[in-house]
């Protein structure tokens, strides 16, 4: 086949995809809720990218909130020019914590999603493609993990891993990954089972393609999209989950720029009523808006990408 033929072939193949993508964009523009969601997510992306400018780090680890070392004043200080969001216990700057907490949320979400999807895709491909005893064993294993309420299993994982000298925050990240992959594995396994029965797989096998080639060139490209979309839209849920661990005191240590940890610290001041409102309201609003943004986006995408509702 000539180069030109290849190009027109490519164009013809890609045209419907472009058309559908344009239609998706149009749908997004028409839905105010998804626009708000997208706006919120973009807002947080900007905060995360500009974090070093918005709140210049002073410690070696930028995720550690700077605090005045000369004072030992425990009581939080209300929002003022120097501390726009006020300070929390021991004069930790809440503005710094919320800004760098955004970057931390993105970093944690990204690490968890990439690892979850990698594990999920590899195991799901193996289970779906080879079937038999491997499939049976893997699926029973996912059954057992899914039999636990995930937060509670992560609690057990955290105390176990941290007893081996792994820091709580790493233990929490590993824990979230270890309980998160089964859902994705099942999703991709289902897709693989669907794709496997297609004629083109049979054809590829008949023409002598190896398992690796069939999986990587034919099965994976046709099975991967739903799981990638579902996985990336779970961003908000993962960050919320991590924040819950932080609130329970099982995530980041004190002074770490983590929203959950900040709320946990702020909750010490709740017994004074609304007097120290800034200690829990600012980090709480950051988490809520972040999760809200992703959920709005996820909601809209689920409706738009669902072929049943797409054209309605």
């Amino acid at each position, binding site marked *: 086949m000539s180069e030109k033929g290849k190009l027109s072939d490519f164009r013809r193949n890609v045209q419907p995809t472009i058309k559908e993508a344009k239609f998706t964009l149009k749908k997004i523009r028409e839905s105010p*809720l998804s626009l708000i969601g997208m706006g919120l997510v973009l807002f947080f992306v900007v905060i995360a990218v500009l974090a070093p400018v918005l709140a210049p780090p002073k410690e070696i680890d930028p995720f550690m909130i700077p605090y005045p070392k000369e004072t030992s004043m425990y009581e939080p200080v209300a929002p003022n020019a120097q501390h726009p969001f006020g300070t929390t216990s021991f004069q930790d700057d809440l503005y710094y914590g919320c800004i760098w907490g955004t970057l931390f949320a993105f970093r944690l979400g990204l690490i968890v999603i990439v690892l979850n999807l990698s594990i999920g895709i590899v195991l799901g491909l193996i289970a779906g493609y080879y079937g038999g005893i491997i499939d049976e064993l893997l699926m*029973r*294993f996912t*059954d*057992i*993990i899914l*039999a*636990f*309420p*995930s*937060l*509670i*299993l992560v*609690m*057990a*994982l*955290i*105390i*176990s*891993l*941290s*007893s*081996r000298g792994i820091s709580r925050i790493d233990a929490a990240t590993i824990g979230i990954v270890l309980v998160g992959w089964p859902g994705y594995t099942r999703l991709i396994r289902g897709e693989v089972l669907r794709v496997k029965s297609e004629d083109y797989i049979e054809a590829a096998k008949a023409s002598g393609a190896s398992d690796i080639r069939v999986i990587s060139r034919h099965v994976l490209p046709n099975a991967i999209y739903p799981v990638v979309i579902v996985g990336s839209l779970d961003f*908000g849920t993962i960050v*919320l989950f991590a*924040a*819950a661990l932080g*609130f*329970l*005191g*099982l995530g980041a240590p004190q002074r770490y720029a983590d929203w959950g940890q900040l*709320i946990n610290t*702020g*909750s010490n001041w*709740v*017994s*004074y*009523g*609304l007097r120290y*409102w800034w200690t*829990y*309201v600012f980090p*709480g609003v950051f*988490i*809520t808006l972040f*999760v*809200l943004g992703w*959920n*709005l986006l996820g*909601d809209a995408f689920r409706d738009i990408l669902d072929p049943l509702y797409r054209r309605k």
Partner: protein
Amino acid sequence: MGLREYIIRRIILMVPTVLGVVLLIFIVLQFIPPESRATLYVRDPSKLRNIQEIIDAFGLNRPVYEQFAIWLREILQGNFGYAVYTGHEPVLDGLLARLPATMEIVIYSAPLIVLFGISLGTTAAVHRDKPLDHVSRVMSILGTSLPSFFFGILLIALFVAQLKWTTPGRASNMGVVLIRAKQGLYTRYTGLLTIDSLLNGDWMLFIDAAKHLVLPALVLVFIQSAQIVRVSRSSMLESLSKTYIVAARAKGLSRKEVIYGHARRNALIPVVTISGLLVGTMMTGLTITETVFQFGGIGNWAANAAIALDVPVVAAYAMFSALVFVVANLIVDILYAYIDPRIRLG
């Protein structure tokens, strides 16, 4: 296959899952050095003075499969170890003592979650794109986005600390209840304050305990019903668009009869399916809500134990919650098979 055979088969299939749950927790605990997990094996604190003795007696240095067999034997005998840091009591006793506090939240909020979720979701579907529908959408999106601990903290700050309507915990003065119980002035029938107070004829305690339940229940209902609102709304919308609805209307039934008799009944099937999953999120929600309100239930206990590295408490709580989750899903499956014969026949 009849419904009875189906139930028996499902119960038998549950055994490997429960064994798997115990095995998984065992594997997770294997990372912990033997001396730190010795508390998993004894109920008597005086034995904890000699850790090496426990390690030898329960084979903590022996091969893994032998260890698992020994642990399984202990668990089957009801030995879940001793809570050294949080409670100073055998874990099983601690769990049973704190279960009523948790049950008290569950028995009031669970029916509310289901009723509120279904009625808001289905009514929103009937009034599609009207104000009520928008309210339901906003509520379900907020319910999934607002962290339960943040919501709970806001409620505490405002209603508990600022306005002083109630106090944290289960009652304004739990100590008085315990002292009266010791003096024989108060009999503990179920451990649930709202029920025991009525049986004891103590109206003040009943009102007090009920007041303390309002905020935790509000958090749980708001957060947990979001999913039900969403599912029942979309399933009601689908159900309303079916041809049997048109047929029912055509044969002369009133709009009300059709909506509540035909459409809603069929719309409830997917709600039954997700209610099993909701038990899992409910356990998670309880862990957080109890901690926020210092309610003294098993979730509160386990969260404190996790911070204090009290291994046996967390292990027992994890296995207990998985067991509840598995049993709840079994009940849902049986209900489902009862509603929809295709399941048990297929």
